[in-house]
């Protein structure tokens, strides 16, 4: 059983490309991408047990955290940098997002939308921090320290001059559906969102060596 967000990432990633999975856990996505798309995969994971599990699977994973260790990767050393359900747990999400698009041509980012109606309703009706399917932990134990709404995220992408190449919405175990990230309605109804981002042309960072192909944009809902 493949997780729905993994299924979408699998569709987005070009075969044989170089992928960095930031917060790769026990390496399920990397394993999948290596098997199905023959990617040259690397991982970054903060938890010792996750890293050890990845290494036992033969994956090249480094123990470290997104806030500190992305800085050490060279410019454009990957085609894709994946940050799955981790952005909201970083100390400096803006810096992390910026770094992802320094070291990779494209960033694939997913996060829980704090603008979802259940979240708003929980706060409005009960006056308590929301505990939903997408955000199951109580406020005092959640790793999520920088939650944002879909609209907040879009404002940040504007601020960083990023382009949205693909976007999708998920709810629970259901399949992904296309989503217009600028729609106010989507900010109510999207539980979890997934983006593929790149830098707007004119704002390139790093350099590409000759003969190197750029990652193609995704075909999220064409195929």
């Amino acid at each position, binding site marked *: 059983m493949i997780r729905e967000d993994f299924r979408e990432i699998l569709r987005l990633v070009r075969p044989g490309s170089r992928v960095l999975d930031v917060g790769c856990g026990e390496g399920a996505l990397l394993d999948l991408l290596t098997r199905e798309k023959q990617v040259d995969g690397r991982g970054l994971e903060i938890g*010792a047990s996750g*890293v*050890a599990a990845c*290494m*036992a699977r*033969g994956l*090249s994973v*480094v*123990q470290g955290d997104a806030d500190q260790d992305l800085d*050490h990767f060279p410019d454009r050393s990957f085609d894709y940098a994946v940050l799955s359900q981790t952005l909201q747990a970083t100390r400096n999400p803006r810096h992390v997002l910026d770094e992802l698009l320094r070291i990779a041509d494209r960033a694939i980012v997913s996060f829980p939308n704090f603008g979802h109606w259940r979240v708003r309703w929980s706060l409005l009706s009960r006056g308590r921090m929301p505990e939903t399917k997408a955000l199951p932990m109580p406020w005092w134990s959640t790793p999520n320290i920088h939650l944002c709404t879909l609209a907040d995220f879009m404002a940040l992408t504007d601020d960083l001059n990023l382009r949205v190449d693909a976007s999708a919405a998920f709810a629970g175990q259901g399949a992904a559906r296309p989503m217009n990230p600028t729609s106010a309605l989507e900010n109510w109804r999207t539980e979890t969102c997934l983006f593929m981002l790149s830098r707007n042309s004119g704002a390139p960072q790093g350099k590409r060596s000759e003969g190197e192909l750029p990652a193609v944009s995704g075909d999220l809902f064409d195929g």
Partner: protein
Amino acid sequence: MAALDLVTPAAPPTGGGTWRFPADEPLRLDSGAVLEGLEIGYQTYGQLNADKSNAVLICHALTGDQHVASQHPVTGKPGWWTRLIGPGKPLDPARHFVICSNVIGGCMGSTGPASINPATGKPYGLTFPVITIADMVRAQAMLVKALGVETLFAVIGGSMGGMQAQQWAVDYPERVFSVVVLASASRHSAQNIAFHEVGRQAIMADPDWRGGAYADHGVRPEKGLAVARMAAHITYLSEPALQRKFGRELKRDGLSWGFDADFQVESYLRHQGASFVDRFDANSYLYITRATDYFDIAAGHGGVLAKAFTAARDVRFCVLSFTSDWLYPTAESRHLVRALTAAGARAAFAEIESDKGHDAFLLDEPVMDAALAGFLSSAERDRGLT
């Protein structure tokens, strides 16, 4: 010309023994000195395959030697890394050709300060040139080549062995496919140097050291060497490991009200010191500790560690550290891994939870075993060995 000069030395036999460098191949050292007639003590396990792609070099730590997977001729103990090497183990002589050699400067068959200087007919003593980790690796590279190996599938080492493994990647990137660095560092810290200096001073303070020429006087600085070992041994353990093993346990009922070994931990350390002098040469200890003190990979590359590894970006690395290792703490491994990342090399790195201190890399650590086995088997797949 003497006929002897024309004799081509035979390739070193597999299984092990002592290999003498060809007369026309002296070892040029970092210090500028040249060692002639160098001998290397080594062991091999398994056979080189037809593709010559299954050779693995194991690099031993400070006071280790080449008897990595077979009984030690002096102590009678089993090989020091049979957890890793043996039938059914990640490195299996049925599939791999495992090589391990005594470092130069050592005292288990390789040329070192206790060897006879051909120029004088007497043991070198302190006339032996100071050697470096890179010198050790240069000698290994010559042995490996003589054994018919072009490219090593893996170079693996812990502690000082990990330094050699890094040096291999820096100096011979095209001759190594993968590198494993356990509980090691890319440079010696002030604290590392300080502990080594204590050990050296203990040896040199022993009246039987005789300025390093003890062999000429038929004595050995055993007391000094034992103290050096005792001090060093503490750095290989951790406070919780010592506490768990010994606590304040007494050796016999009651205190002696004197300076006998009252506590178990004292008795243990004295035993460690006493048994060490049976198998190790004091001058070798000076030279090898010096080599690790001089070790600083970045120094040769403008102080930028990543630059040292730019040529090694096709080598795959596995770096492991241990939470309770205060001799080569995780920060040192992380420093290495960040440099490897910056160089664009493929690196895997994990800090293993253990309270066993620096020695954990030699001990029962199932998480390390699984990580190492996973790394090696995926490298084998990529190398086409499975």
